[in-house]
């Protein structure tokens, strides 16, 4: 029965993705992609990766859809396919052959599991009990630091390109009770995910995306217009996460002589401190990626 579930799910994902990429209607493509994201989150759950499913849920349901819808309204109508049928046929053949080769290569690769033993061996000294959080913020914290830097680089690019700030229309009086319940719930869930990330699935990224979703509801409902002043504060907050993480890396270097190797016994405090700063900073960055960054210099 669960095999039937997996088969139906994967067929659904593939079909939705194909329909999404083949539609001529912009709203249809974007909504199709969001629905594909829902199904993909289900498949992460089935693959035993609840941390990834949480992140996909928080980002895919909230931010990606809003971002794509914003752009779909501004871009020109879909251009017709220009490639001639013979060209398309050849490309389809090559893509299918590549996909087949990829499936064969992954399936026959000898999956020597090196990491699980290493992770479970060191988990006790990492300060947390959720192995994914341990990998993200202790064993490979260096990667996470660079990831925040990548987010910040994208933010700088958005600032240079400067897309127009979204101007949501008024949505009527029913929005107020809705926002009054949803926004505090988002903030509460973000805190919950951040705190429980140490032991069970959750963590800074999920919490940050959740918080960004709440802020998007505020912005789209017309309760918090993205003024330049507010956006400057957001940009400041976005920088705080990177700054705290870098300072923590340097502090750990001074204390232990190795970059991002936390002193014995205090790892939990380091991780929680970094995660709290990252949550706020990720929420600010995701929001600014949606509404743009002010171009005038910060005061």
């Amino acid at each position: 029965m669960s095999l039937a579930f997996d088969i139906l799910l994967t067929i659904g994902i593939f079909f939705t993705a194909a329909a999404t990429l083949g539609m001529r209607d912009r709203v249809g493509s974007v909504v199709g992609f969001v629905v594909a994201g829902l199904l993909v989150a289900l498949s992460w759950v089935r693959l035993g990766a609840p941390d990834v499913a949480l992140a996909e849920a928080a980002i895919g349901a909230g931010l990606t859809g809003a971002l794509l819808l914003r752009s779909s309204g501004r871009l020109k109508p879909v251009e017709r396919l220009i490639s001639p049928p013979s060209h398309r046929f050849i490309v389809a053949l090559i893509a299918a052959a590549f996909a087949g080769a990829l499936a064969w290569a992954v399936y026959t690769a000898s999956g020597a599991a090196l990491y699980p033993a290493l992770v479970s061996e060191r988990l006790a000294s990492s300060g947390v009990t959720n192995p994914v959080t341990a990998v993200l913020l202790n064993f490979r914290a260096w990667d996470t630091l660079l990831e925040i830097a990548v987010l910040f680089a994208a933010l700088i690019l958005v600032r240079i390109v400067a897309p127009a700030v979204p101007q949501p229309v008024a949505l009527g009086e029913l929005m107020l009770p809705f926002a009054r319940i949803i926004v505090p719930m988002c903030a509460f869930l973000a805190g919950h995910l951040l705190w429980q990330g140490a032991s069970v699935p959750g963590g800074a990224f999920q919490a940050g995306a959740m918080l960004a979703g709440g802020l998007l509801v505020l912005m789209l409902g017309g309760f918090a217009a993205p003024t330049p002043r507010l956006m400057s504060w957001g940009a400041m907050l976005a920088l705080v996460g990177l700054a705290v993480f870098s300072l923590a890396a340097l502090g750990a270097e001074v204390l232990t002589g190795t970059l991002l190797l936390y002193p014995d016994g205090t790892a939990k405090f380091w991780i929680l401190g970094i995660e709290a700063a990252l949550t706020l900073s990720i929420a600010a960055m995701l929001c600014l990626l949606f509404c743009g960054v002010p171009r005038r210099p910060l005061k």
Partner: protein
Amino acid sequence: MTSDLIYICAGSGLVGLALYRLSTCRDMLLRVLSLNVLAVGVAMLFLASARHAGITDAVPQAFVLTGIVVLVAVTAALLALAERVDGQDDE
């Protein structure tokens, strides 16, 4: 093991679909969507091959998690660029 095979097939199918769309389509939004589908396919291959005896390896999970966050940043940057390019054509 069979269910892993299903997800491996689906993942590589998504990769193939995304590559086909990337090379036959000129529309910018659809290209950004194709890139997203490509990333989902790769992530699915990663996670499906990370399962050993019912437990999913934590290191690939962390990679995929990082990938999702980076992907949304890349998407936002590309969309901002696409809007700018479309605006340029009008002038």
